[in-house]
């Protein structure tokens, strides 16, 4: 049991890991420097622990995590590809890691050059000329995108209220729209998994500010009508936003800019292999077309004859969306990745991601196509695909959740489950390009064996997992009587 005590519960009065630097200046009475009414009466009850205890505590906690370095992690829409350690090495160079964000740009030329180079590379990959690296995650990039769209329309004296999003959209899309003061209008999905053009035509009017689209969408499908979609949206004077979470499918094959999008966000923590960190840090740079450029956030990196600089001189800019220059450490990693792979390697990454996804789809079709049919899979898929667990649920009486939990006992991270919402009992599977064929085969066989087992005895899956540090947890109870900090 001691392995679930928190660090607070392990503390004992008097222990410490920190040794303070010596007081090397003449000591002045505290009251003189800081009047008592401003002072804290009781120290915050942080843990009192020695250094060895901290190390052991967190090393042991780490062992209660599943991670990408240890196993297959086909979490759809998340692009859990290998994180090269070279990136951690270069990001830790003191010239980056210990560079103060307010350093005079003349003395931060290497950092600005790196940002400039990364911006140029993202521009080429997306086919859109201008880039801001500022947003801290995909959702932050989306917020930037919607605010830029507002600014664009306002600059034209228009107030448009609506943002179209397909029902396959990721939750951050609609949440962002509301946060940016606009209103979500849902667009339907057609029988091939793409945007319902009739519905789109009907809803696209002069009050529409923006269409937010993921392409390939969250089913792993590229919209075959993308050119028509762009036309419909542009014809009503609205902007096209590309949610780039799935860009890993198409590098070097097609570009949002060439499809007619005005704004795209990148998830550096997906396509460009910034490690996911258990839920961040991420990074959500955006690329935009010429007509959006005047509104981009400040500061911006500019290249001048005397070197690189940061400028805030942009009268129409929407301003800042955060402090400093963005998650620079993620820029270092993603830039290293782009330089490691180059044009050919990036294209190879996308091609292999698509090959692996189609292969795994084919294997699963062989093994269990009847119980877990693919949603809208008549044209195969790009980098991911979505299965429906509905027949399985009907036939074997186990749900997608049960299948997912049983996969844990097989040492796999389950796919994304119950997303996208429009597929019943959805399983969204993204193998990525860095997995071997052997791993894909093992995964397909694991799924098949779970289904076989369930046919014998569905209770096994329904009560899974068994071999994990804890088993199914009472989530409802947690939400009802929230205990969200250690009582002390």
């Amino acid at each position, binding site marked *: 049991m001691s392995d679930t005590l928190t660090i607070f519960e392990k503390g004992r009065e008097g222990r410490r890991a920190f040794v303070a630097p010596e007081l090397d200046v003449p000591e002045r009475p505290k009251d003189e420097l800081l009047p008592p009414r401003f002072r804290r009466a009781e120290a915050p009850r942080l843990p009192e622990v020695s250094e060895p205890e901290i190390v052991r505590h967190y090393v042991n906690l780490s062992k209660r995590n599943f991670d990408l370095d240890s196993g297959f992690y086909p979490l759809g829409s998340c692009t859990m590809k290998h994180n090269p350690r070279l990136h951690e090495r270069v990001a830790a160079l003191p010239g980056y890691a210990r560079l103060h964000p307010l350093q005079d740009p003349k003395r931060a030329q290497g950092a600005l050059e790196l940002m400039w180079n990364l911006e140029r590379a993202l521009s080429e990959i997306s086919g859109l000329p201008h880039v801001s690296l500022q947003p801290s995650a995909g959702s*932050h990039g989306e917020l930037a995108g919607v*605010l830029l769209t507002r600014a664009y329309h306002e600059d034209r004296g228009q107030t448009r209220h609506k943002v179209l999003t397909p029902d396959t959209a990721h939750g951050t899309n609609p949440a962002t729209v509301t946060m940016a003061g606009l209103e979500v209008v849902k667009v339907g999905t057609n029988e091939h998994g793409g945007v319902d053009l009739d519905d789109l035509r009907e809803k696209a009017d002069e009050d529409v500010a923006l269409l937010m689209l993921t392409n390939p969408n969250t089913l792993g499908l590229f919209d075959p009508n993308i050119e028509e979609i762009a036309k419909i949206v542009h014809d009503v004077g609205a902007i096209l936003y590309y949610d780039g979470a799935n860009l890993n499918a198409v590098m070097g094959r097609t570009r949002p800019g060439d499809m007619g999008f005005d704004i795209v966000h990148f998830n550096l923590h997906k396509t460009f292999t910034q490690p996911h960190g258990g839920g961040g840090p991420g990074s959500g740079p955006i690329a935009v077309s010429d007509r959006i450029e005047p509104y981009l956030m400040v500061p911006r990196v500019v290249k001048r004859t005397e070197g690189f600089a940061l400028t805030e001189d942009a009268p129409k800019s929407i301003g800042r969306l955060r402090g400093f220059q963005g998650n620079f450490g993620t820029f270092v990693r993603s830039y290293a990745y782009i330089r490691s792979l180059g044009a050919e390697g990036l294209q190879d990454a996308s091609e292999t991601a698509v090959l692996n996804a189609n292969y795994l789809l084919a294997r699963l079709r062989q093994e269990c196509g009847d119980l877990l049919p693919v949603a809208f899979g008549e044209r195969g898929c790009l980098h991911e695909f979505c299965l429906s667990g509905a027949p399985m649920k009907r036939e074997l009486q186990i749900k997608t959740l049960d299948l997912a939990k049983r996969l844990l006992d097989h040492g796999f991270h389950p796919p994304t489950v119950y997303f996208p919402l429009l597929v019943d009992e959805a399983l969204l599977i993204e193998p990525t390009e860095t997995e071997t064929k052997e791993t894909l085969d093992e995964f397909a066989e694991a799924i098949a064996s779970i289904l076989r087992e369930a046919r014998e005895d569905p209770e096994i899956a329904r009560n899974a997992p068994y071999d994990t540090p804890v088993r199914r947890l009472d989530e409802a109870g947690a939400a009802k009587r929230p205990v969200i900090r250690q009582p002390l």
Partner: protein
Amino acid sequence: MSRYTAVTPEDLREMLATIGVGSIDELFDRQVPAGVRLGRPLDLPAGLPEQAVYEHLRDLAAKNTSTEDEITFLGAGMYDTYVPAIVDMLMERSEFLTPYTPYQPEISQGGLQVMFEYQTAISELTALPVSNASVYEGPSALGAAGYLAKLANGRRRFVISAGVHPHSRETLRTMAHGYEMEVAEVPLRDGVTDRDAWHDAIDGDTSAVFLQQPNFLGAVEDVEALAVDEPVVVAQVDPLTLGILKPPGECGVDVAVGEGQQLGNRLDYGGPSFGFFAATEAYLRRMPGRIAGETKDVDGRRGFVLTLQTREQHIRRERATSNICTAQALNALGGVVYLSWLGRRGIVELGELLLQRTAYARERLAALDGVELLHEQPVVREFAVRLDAPVERVIARCQDQGVNPGLALDDGLLVALTERRSRADIDRLADVLGAAVAAERRRVEVPA
């Protein structure tokens, strides 16, 4: 095949056969319409071996002047604090570095417990009962607090002190323009928020008020005197001062936010670090972002889960309390490891050390010719001086001597201390700055 992929020619043959296509091109062609195919290679440099990438990145890094290359007194939101070795080691462990958000709690207890411990530590620091598991960073945390207030009371105005960091004020304005709030700014008087103007500015349509402690000029604000009952009181706080400064939860603050970089995170030219976000119980179900909660498993074992998810975008979509999804979990891990390392006594000792060294530095600089204090308020770890000389030129002179004297203000400097700046460093700053100011004043007096 690159070094990160593994499809051998034989694999490729077998895989295509299983799929039932003849080539990879076919896979794309059946998905991507001809009209939007790129049809040419990307115009990017060719790939490089690992060692060449390392060397290129190293050469770029060498063009930067880091805090290892000069004695820096730059602060203003991020600080050259010492990162203990155990923090780096734990942040680099695969098991923390490479998973994603703990959607499957059975195999994510490590990350979830870390979040729970982090929330506890932030709650203790701020003396507020509720903390989330991190937001992006400091300034946008302030914007997120504004959104919380707007959703909570539906009013239309924000009042913000001019003592709040300019990046935070700008971010709030940008975000508030989106969710359609007016923003009124209250000026400083004698280095702190003008209390009369502040209370005058707050009206019945005010949704939230924003201040910073210590404020941007390093001055300790009288938060209790600025706190009000009605609109939501949001304070952006410096976490390393909270061992000695009265915490927001004891000063009438409803929401405390701030930049977590100092807590075990590197400067990284501005990020990634983490923002913290803590509030009173009343806002529990309006918080942005992930929250870990304690529960039990089917066998009765203690465990942790993401909880109160109905606030969040993936469940609530357009009615979510925030759009945040990926946050800064790894950096927050660094934060809680750092705070455990510092410990209950350490956070006080460190605060007191900063207090004393800052007082010493302030006194030394104020004694220089051409340098005077911008305000006389109490300070903890940062203070502002006015220079009787062109600020940018003075700074350049100091940097040429290996000392970065701080951030340029309109007519002065914002000087920050950390535990890494010794008395010897401060004395050197005084020498170099004194000489630089003197030289610049001579230059102005005797035009060439």
